[in-house]
């Protein structure tokens, strides 16, 4: 049954995942190409000086991509479930309901993390070619909060979609906007380092909203 659920999620999202992978790869490659042009024309010294002397990590153009991927992945995965109350059918399958929901969003989280890990690995590989480990690490540590924002966007969007009443759905979206604003509040490199472990715990807590929405759906709440 587990395999069937994963296969169902795969069918819903495969087109999007492929598209996201292509877009992410193209934009990452474009950013790397820009950096390599700078290295070619002015030398790697410029990258070092910029990273050391200025509040930048050189890959800021990629900062909102994980959020877009997280949001759209949740839409592609959960929007089909809420149209024509397909979720009702899903929940009536002979399988524990809690586990079913968990399998669904765990699939989404793993798919999201796989895409982001690939991007992070490509970026680290190229940055290490030009930069000492301490500077490449600074860039990637700064990007951690962008990936976390993507994960939060995925979980919040999923919980808003699974929420049966529109009023609470809008409320969840309002909270999502506030949290997104917090996660992109400071452009200073490594500004979130100390706060990041707490943010990870918070983002993992968003799962509760998904279960809450499903439970309200089972109770028959609707506008």
């Amino acid at each position, binding site marked *: 049954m587990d395999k069937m659920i994963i296969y169902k999620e795969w069918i819903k999202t495969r087109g999007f995942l492929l598209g996201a992978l292509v877009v992410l790869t193209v934009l990452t490659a474009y950013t790397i190409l820009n950096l390599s042009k700078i290295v070619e024309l002015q030398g*790697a010294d410029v990258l*070092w000086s910029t990273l050391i002397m200025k509040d930048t990590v050189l890959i800021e153009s990629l900062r909102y991509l994980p959020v877009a991927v997280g949001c759209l992945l949740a839409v592609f995965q959960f929007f089909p479930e809420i149209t024509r109350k397909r979720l009702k059918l899903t929940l009536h399958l002979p399988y524990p309901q809690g586990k079913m929901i968990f399998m669904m969003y765990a699939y989404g989280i793993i798919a999201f993390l796989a895409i982001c890990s690939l991007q992070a690995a490509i970026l680290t590989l190229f940055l290490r070619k030009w930069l000492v480990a301490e500077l490449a690490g600074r860039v990637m540590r700064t990007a951690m909060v962008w990936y976390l924002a993507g994960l939060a966007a995925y979980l919040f969007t999923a919980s808003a979609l699974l929420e049966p009443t529109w009023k609470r759905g809008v409320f969840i979206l309002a909270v999502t906007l506030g949290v997104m604003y917090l996660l992109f509040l400071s452009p200073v490199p490594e500004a979130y380092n100390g*706060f990041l472990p707490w943010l990870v715990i918070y983002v993992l807590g968003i799962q509760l909203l998904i279960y809450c929405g499903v439970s309200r759906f089972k109770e028959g709440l609707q506008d």
Partner: protein
Amino acid sequence: MKTAGRIFLGLSAAVLILWLVPWLYNLATLKSYSPPFTLYSPVVHDFTYLDREEGAKKSLRFIDREGNVYGDEVQPFFYASLLHSRGEFPDSLDGRAITYKEAEDNSLVMTSRPREVAKRNPPVYLLMESVPVRMELQDPEDALVIRKDGIKVWNMASNKMLEDKTADLASQLSSCGFVHPAKLLAGNPSHRKEYDEGYLVTDSKDQLFQVKQVDGKMTARSFPQASGLGIKHLIITEFKNHATLGYLIDRDDRMHMLRPDGSVVATDVIFDPVKDNLLVVGDLFHYTVKVSDDDGEKFYALDSSDFSTVDSMDRAYPLEDEVNLCEYIFPCRIRFVSSDDGYVKPRIQDLSLKGLLADLIILAGIILTIRKKKASQYQ
């Protein structure tokens, strides 16, 4: 799970409200206050501040603590070029002959802000050549990488460690008694300065050293006079007059002047680098040092020759007399960023009992209303 979800959503919304609403309120009601520019005058031997009253803007007018009004001639060093262009630069001051060039060479300005001090910097520092071949300072080609096991010299273009320079630096530091890892580094790797003094560095035992690159070779020097100060912050100066090599802030926030010969002079200036702003404006005769925080400013006038205090002055900022509505609505305020550092983290401020009481009353009202509604549904 349903209750946990409700609590999670409610808490998230509460935190966002406690953060965003007071922020918006402050944004709408905030009035900026800019204190007048103040300098110690070597002419009247008093602190004088720039008059910003209407009518005084067209010409520079300074007022001393007694209320006497002067023109820009009261600050002959700060406005040296202006006075020189008008042919009004004095030939002598306090019985000492002075020249315009002397005034120019001894004029210095230095600032320090908490945000810059508290910033999380990468342990990588650009390394300049202190004696460049073409006389003018060039952009750095190498960098110092601070690691637990030592300071490595890295070539930036090739992204490779320079084994020879690293070994050279390690042996130089070891002969000076340096104990790794390095704790603090202060330098100014910019070619927009007269000369380069490399970096002032403290080791794990708070001993002070200087590291620089001379003719492509690494050199290190120790400052035994600075040991025992418990240095918590360093500022390298590199001013045209070579009067100091740097400023050292000790564990008690006292500022010390490090002279190029390695001697250390304690001053009366108390400055907490992670809380206070620092402005130093120096001239041939005096240094005006301004230490400011959210509450006010403290000025010190130091003698340029021995850094002894000539005069000092306190100025408190005016208190806001407007009612802050937020303290009647919210039990506290949450801020995630601060002007004192670049970190994002929750900071709970402005705790208010009035706000807490108001919120408890509102909450009790909501609970009672819900209960009444439910009771009427069952009847």
